[in-house]
């Protein structure tokens, strides 16, 4: 009995490991006296590696098959494994990059690591959710930890303001999502994603009134849009990115976005495929508005964190181009290409975002925040290697080959054109030209201008290594993107 219980729940092993690890870390941290908290960080890293090992083990054991556990609450499929691995990487990198930054500012308390791990747990639950209930559970676990982390620097007015904004708007968006879910529950009588899908399909065949469902759908899409941060639900993004301590911004900009993407796939693609013509139209509007507003407003920013926030809005818009191209003229032929492209975009974006904020953390030191455009002036004179890495990240964000960002854009544009949204693709392409300008400005400041003042970069061998790997990954992936693309395609094929 016990043996079968264990085997039955094996696909949830990574979550179990993380939960145990996060709880153990809370106790362990009480005994860490050292201010730098090297031991806690190492502990958290070990937990992450164990989670990664567990995920790999599950993939290997399940052969990529889909498992539904806990009475239809939890799903373990290839997409969830892939996204979880991305989240581990992001969180692991966040810990490496941020330790000395936080220590310098007296923010490195035990809570940081525990909150980080619990929020990761929330992301994982969200990614693996197979029911509206688990979606909400994961979402709240993730978000509540993040609210607290944004306010980590409790004496800073901007941080507190950012946390307040994040909390109020986050709660509002959860409310919207919940409202939408309740509508759909009302229409279908079930919370399970697969059950909702079959019930909606059954109703579509009959003459039942659809207005209830579509009404619910609108709120669900709004909730998703809030979490992804796309226009017109983007207001919190610039303030939170700017106000939060940079390591927390790094976390918010990567893992939760990946999780929100998974949520969008579960709710829209898995639960409501029959309503695809409806939600694809909504996403098209959101996508174009985000790309336009994100790219145009980013030009006006002099603060790098705000600029990257607007760039995040634009990037989510590009990602949506993939998500809205799956269902074309009554067939799903474009499905694998489109969702594979969106997934690929999401992963590449997470890597770029981690790299960009990691660089900002690196260039900051005690008493100095690297967050204005002026602060990277002349970086090539002072630290050619960091300048080169930042150049790779910027060109990748702009989507210039041979960097990974180009293939991400290529894939979503291809999906959009194949779906017949040629005009959407043309507009998006022209707006990405606007985007290229502000990324180029960063490169220009680093390479063409002379440095002002002599600032130093802290010598951090491990961090330097990870950051280099992060930046070079974008170049290597730009030359050999095939493996990851195939993984993404395989992941969405068995969705």
């Amino acid at each position, binding site marked *: 009995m016990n043996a079968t219980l264990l085997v039955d729940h094996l696909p949830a092993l990574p979550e179990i490991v993380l939960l145990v690890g996060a709880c153990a870390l809370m106790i362990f941290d009480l005994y860490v006296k050292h201010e730098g908290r090297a031991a806690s960080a190492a502990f958290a890293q070990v937990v992450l590696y164990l989670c990664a090992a567990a995920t790999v083990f599950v993939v290997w054991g399940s052969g990529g098959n889909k498992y539904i556990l806990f009475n239809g609450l939890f799903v373990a499929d290839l997409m969830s494994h892939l996204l979880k691995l991305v989240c581990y990487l992001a969180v692991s990198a966040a810990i490496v990059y941020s330790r000395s930054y936080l220590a310098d500012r007296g923010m490195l308390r035990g809570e940081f690591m525990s909150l980080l791990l619990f929020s990761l747990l929330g992301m994982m639950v969200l990614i693996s959710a197979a029911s509206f209930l688990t979606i909400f559970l994961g979402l709240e676990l993730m978000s509540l930890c993040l609210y607290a982390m944004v306010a980590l620097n409790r004496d800073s007015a901007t941080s507190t303001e950012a946390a307040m904004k994040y909390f109020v708007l986050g709660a509002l968006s959860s409310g919207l999502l919940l409202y939408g879910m309740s509508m759909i529950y009302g229409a279908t009588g079930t919370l399970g994603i697969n059950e909702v899908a079959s019930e909606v399909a059954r109703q579509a065949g009959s003459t039942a009134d659809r207005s209830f469902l579509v009404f619910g759908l609108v709120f669900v899409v709004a909730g998703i849009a809030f979490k992804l941060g796309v226009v017109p639900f983007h207001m919190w993004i610039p303030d939170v990115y700017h106000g939060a301590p940079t390591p927390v911004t790094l976390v918010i900009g990567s893992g939760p976005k990946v999780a929100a993407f998974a949520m969008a796939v579960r709710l829209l693609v898995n639960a409501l495929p029959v309503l695809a013509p409806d939600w694809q139209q909504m996403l098209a509007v959101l996508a174009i508005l985000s790309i336009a507003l994100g790219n145009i407003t980013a030009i006006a920013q002099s603060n790098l964190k705000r600029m990257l926030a607007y760039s995040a809005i634009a990037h989510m818009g590009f990602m949506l181009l993939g998500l809205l191209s799956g269902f074309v003229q009554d067939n799903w032929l474009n499905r694998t290409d489109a969702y594979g492209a969106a997934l690929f975009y999401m992963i590449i974006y997470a890597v770029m975002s981690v790299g960009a904020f990691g660089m900002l953390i690196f260039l900051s030191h005690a008493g100095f925040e690297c967050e204005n455009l002026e602060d990277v002036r002349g970086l090539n004179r002072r630290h050619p290697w960091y300048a080169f890495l930042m150049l790779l990240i910027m060109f990748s964000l702009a989507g*210039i080959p041979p960097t990974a960002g180009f*293939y991400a854009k290529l894939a979503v*544009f*291809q999906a959009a054109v194949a779906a017949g949204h*040629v005009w959407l693709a043309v507009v998006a392409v022209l707006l990405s*030209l606007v985007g*290229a*300008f502000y990324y*180029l400005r960063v490169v220009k400041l680093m390479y*063409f201008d002379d440095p002002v003042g002599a600032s130093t970069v802290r010598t951090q061998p491990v961090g330097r290594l990870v950051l280099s790997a992060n930046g070079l990954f974008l170049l290597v992936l730009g030359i050999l993107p095939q493996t990851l693309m195939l993984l993404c395609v395989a992941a969405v094929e068995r969705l």
Partner: protein
Amino acid sequence: MLLSAAIWIPLAAGVLVLAVGDRSPFMRWIALAGALLGFLVTIPLYTGFDAASSAMQFEEMKPWISPFNINYHLGVDGISLLFVLLNSFITILVVIAGWTVIETRTAQYFAAFLIMSGLLNGVFSALDAVLFYVFFEGTLIPMFIIIGIWGGPNRVYAAVKFFLYTLFGSLLMLIAMLYLYSKSGGSFAILDWHKLPLPLGVQIALFFGFLFAFAVKVPMWPVHTWLPDAHTEAPTGGSVVLAAILLKLGAYGFVRFSLPILPDASRELAWLMVALSLIAVAYIGLVTLVQSDMKRLIAYSSISHMGFVTLGFFIFNAYGVEGGLVQMISHGFVSAAMFLCVGVLYDRMHSRAIADYGGVVNTMPKFATLMMLFAMANAGLPATSGFVGEFMVIMGAMKTGFWLALVAATTMIWGAAYTLWMYKRVIFGVVANDHVAKLKDLNLREVIVLAALAIAVLWLGVYPLPVTEVMHASVSDLLRHVAVAKQ
């Protein structure tokens, strides 16, 4: 393997140069070795080339990104082969020319040029559209950095303008490529697209998609305004590569994409292309006349000369297309030489203004002699390479219409006027000032570079057969293909 070697040897040498850094005494030699080796591997391409065949040769094909059916597919025909050779040759000269001139961040300078050389070879030999696009766009990054770091006072403006203009064009081309990909049933192979039937309306839309990308690169009037800025502010080596090779990308794109994939649209819109080309030839020729900055003058003359190339392509006869191609090669040599000549003066005087010079012949006789030759070639004097291409295009234009040829032929007048007038003001007359009086004549390094180009210019002018015979089969095949409607 030869084509891969031509792409990856310079790239690898560039990375190696970056790795050893400024302080290493071997850095320059590694750069030179990389450039020489890169050129040497292209020689067997020419000697082993079967000129009787119009098919792609030295093909290499490996799956690259299988979900999108993108392949690492290389190959050259009689048209692209010449540009691979030209590019590899010019790279050597650029490395030698920058030997002592560049003082800041020297390793990055040489690395940028070597990496760009590899990427450019990739553009000319790619037979897969995405591979082409990656190389095509990839060249932007090193060029952006070259102009921005080692350029003149207004370099940042020029670099950003260059980047955004060319990116704008390429992004529209990307959409056109994706459209072709979905219409061709999932193939990025350029040669497959040549056979793809398309309705005229679609062809015209796609033609404009490609037109922006290539017209910006050529550059054609009215999207030429980035070129004078970029040229004026770029360091000598940057100007040389920009004029000799990068400008050829656009014209090459017309031959590889627009003409064979969209033949009906090309014929339908030929009037537009011819009109834009003639404006470039005649109007820009006049604009060139009034320039007071030597580099700006040569930049404008480049636009005018490239107008000849596009004119040749869109009159659809063998004289025109072959003339256009010869003109591209010739312009590669002549403009490189002219910019190097200005570079020689600029290194000594730090001024590009014509007014600061005068009577240079008194102090630099060797230089004056060599520059005379290049100036004549730029003006299109018979027995220099400049004459061959222009003459062929005018012959081709004459077959299409007398007035067309007449307007085109005015270039002979404008070309002579602006080049020789500049030459006269800079070289002849009395010694203008003390700086000119103190000028030293060419050193050995400069003589080698300019002499190599002088030989090329004269050889191509007197005996162009080795070039035209290679391209002949490919060009007639192209023209046969374009003549057939595919809608």
